[in-house]
């Protein structure tokens, strides 16, 4: 197929039609990004529990809705389940001395079995679908505009709560723990408790996001959370980069949180474009990982460009050249 034929085969109308769906998904992932932000930026912990707790949120929500539980109540239980997952990671890390990243991997690994049981009892099940025609769901891809509105309201409420909480004495103590643990201890902060608390809150948000995603797509699946840490990080990084670009003089905490959700939306719109271009969707994860790696590397490389041994060596050579000439 010639390039001209390829471009001729792309239908711009399809791209525009797909955008609202991308926005809806992006908002839901944006909630997940808020959770990732709490651990990754505020606590300075890369928490891999989320790959499991996202699925847990979805599994709990769908299972409870199928049992006749109202969707909002199912989400509340999902939040508690996520909280517990974060608690387990936190206790593995602080009480048993397991490095945070390994503690997260262990919990995530264990959650695979737990999630199978949540969806299928003792026998276990790898997925479970919920028909939006038979059950009252909060959001569904059948009604994208409604999904966007519900998602936006949920995001607004959560951002408001997070803004308040991290401005309180307790929230400040969590931020201090991430910023300088030695100083925090010297100021009488129990940093282990703060880490557990932060991990629990983060995973509660991730599970909520998973619960909303399962409703949106109409099913929960054992693999729905696979790689979600990378997508969450992508949303965080895109959001922060955009935020810094818009507000060069620095931005308030609430603005930053809003931009994290926008980061999720931008990510999914970009994914929509990639799929619309009919680029091989198998390579989507490779592409996402590469983008996240580049953005994570940028601050380091910028620093290197300003001061590194190579730079110093070059400068020294140049200087020698001029003095000897």
């Amino acid at each position, binding site marked *: 197929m010639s390039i001209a034929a390829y471009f001729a085969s792309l239908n711009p109308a399809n791209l525009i039609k797909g955008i609202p769906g991308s926005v809806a998904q992006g908002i839901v992932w944006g909630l997940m990004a808020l959770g990732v932000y709490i651990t990754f930026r505020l606590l300075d912990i890369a928490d891999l529990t989320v790959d499991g707790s996202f699925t847990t949120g979805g599994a709990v929500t769908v299972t409870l809705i199928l049992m006749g539980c109202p969707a909002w109540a199912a989400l509340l239980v999902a939040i508690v389940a996520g909280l517990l997952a974060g608690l387990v990671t936190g206790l593995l890390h602080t009480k048993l001395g397991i490095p945070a990243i390994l503690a997260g991997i262990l919990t995530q690994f264990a959650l695979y079995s737990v999630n199978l049981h949540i969806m299928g009892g003792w026998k276990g099940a790898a997925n479970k679908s919920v028909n939006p025609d038979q059950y009252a769901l909060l959001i569904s891809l059948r009604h994208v505009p409604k999904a966007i509105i519900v998602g936006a309201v949920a995001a607004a409420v959560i951002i408001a709560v997070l803004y308040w909480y991290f401005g*309180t004495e307790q929230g400040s103590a969590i931020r*201090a723990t991430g*910023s300088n643990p030695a100083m925090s201890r*010297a100021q009488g902060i129990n940093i282990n408790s703060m880490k557990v608390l932060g991990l629990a809150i983060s995973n509660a948000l991730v599970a909520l996001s998973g619960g909303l995603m399962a409703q949106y797509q109409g099913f929960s699946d054992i693999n729905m959370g696979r790689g979600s840490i990378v997508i969450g990080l992508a949303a965080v990084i895109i959001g922060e980069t955009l935020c810094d670009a818009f507000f060069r003089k620095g931005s308030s905490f609430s603005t930053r949180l809003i931009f994290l959700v926008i980061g999720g939306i931008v990510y999914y719109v970009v994914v929509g474009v990639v799929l619309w271009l009919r680029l091989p969707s198998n390579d989507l994860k490779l592409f996402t990982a590469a983008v996240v790696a580049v953005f994570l590397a940028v601050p380091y490389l910028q620093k290197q460009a300003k001061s590194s041994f190579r730079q110093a060596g070059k400068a020294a050579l140049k200087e020698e050249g001029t003095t000897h000439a």
Partner: protein
Amino acid sequence: MLDINHVSKTFNPGTINEKKALVNLNLHLKEGDFVTVIGGNGAGKSTMLNAVAGVWPVDSGSIVIDGEDVTGLAEYQRARLIGRVFQDPMMGTAPNMQIEENLALAYRRGKKRGLGWGVTKAERTLYREKLKTLGLGLEDRMTSKVGLLSGGQRQALTLLMAALQKPKLLLLDEHTAALDPATAAKVLELSDTIVQENGLTAMMITHNMKDAIAHGNRIIMMNEGRIILDIEGEEKKKLTKADLLQKFAEVAGVQEETDSVLLS
């Protein structure tokens, strides 16, 4: 105010790196004592301060602050009694947080941290007043991130934070060692002011014998995990650097003797 009773601490016991850092250490401070601590590298000065602060548990002995036995309390639990300034200016403040947020963290040292606002309006007025006394212009930058401040500014802020919630004991661990001489002198002067104005009981480690003589009402010299010299009051005022160096040499001499006894 502080009682260190028969405290011992050995690092890496039973290994080739075994280090007896504190050996049956005893020290008693009265309320309002300002003690300067000198001694060579590895003498146990920082180890003593860390033992008091609860960075790790001691092997034996007890530590009592203002009548309360804190030997079994973790670092964060003792923090309500102790204000600290570290050698590294980066260690005493949270760089990603604002100046006023850092002060607010210190203001709640030893208090329960609940769901009230992290910084209240009334506090801001207080912090502004306190920051003004530093004379660094920080009162106009209260919402700046602390990471933007210089080492000297951060150390001055840490001092302010250490005394904001009046501690039973102030521990200064070579807190001017990483600063340039002019800044060091300023921070030292500030330390004196804060100790005197609040009537604090304090311990200050320094490698500068002149500073050790000039500040405080009592001086102790440490060597090999023990206190080998303890001078206070009028006698301390008359001390000279030469006296201290001579005393130091005497101790080193004693060591040589024991060495020769061992080798003979």
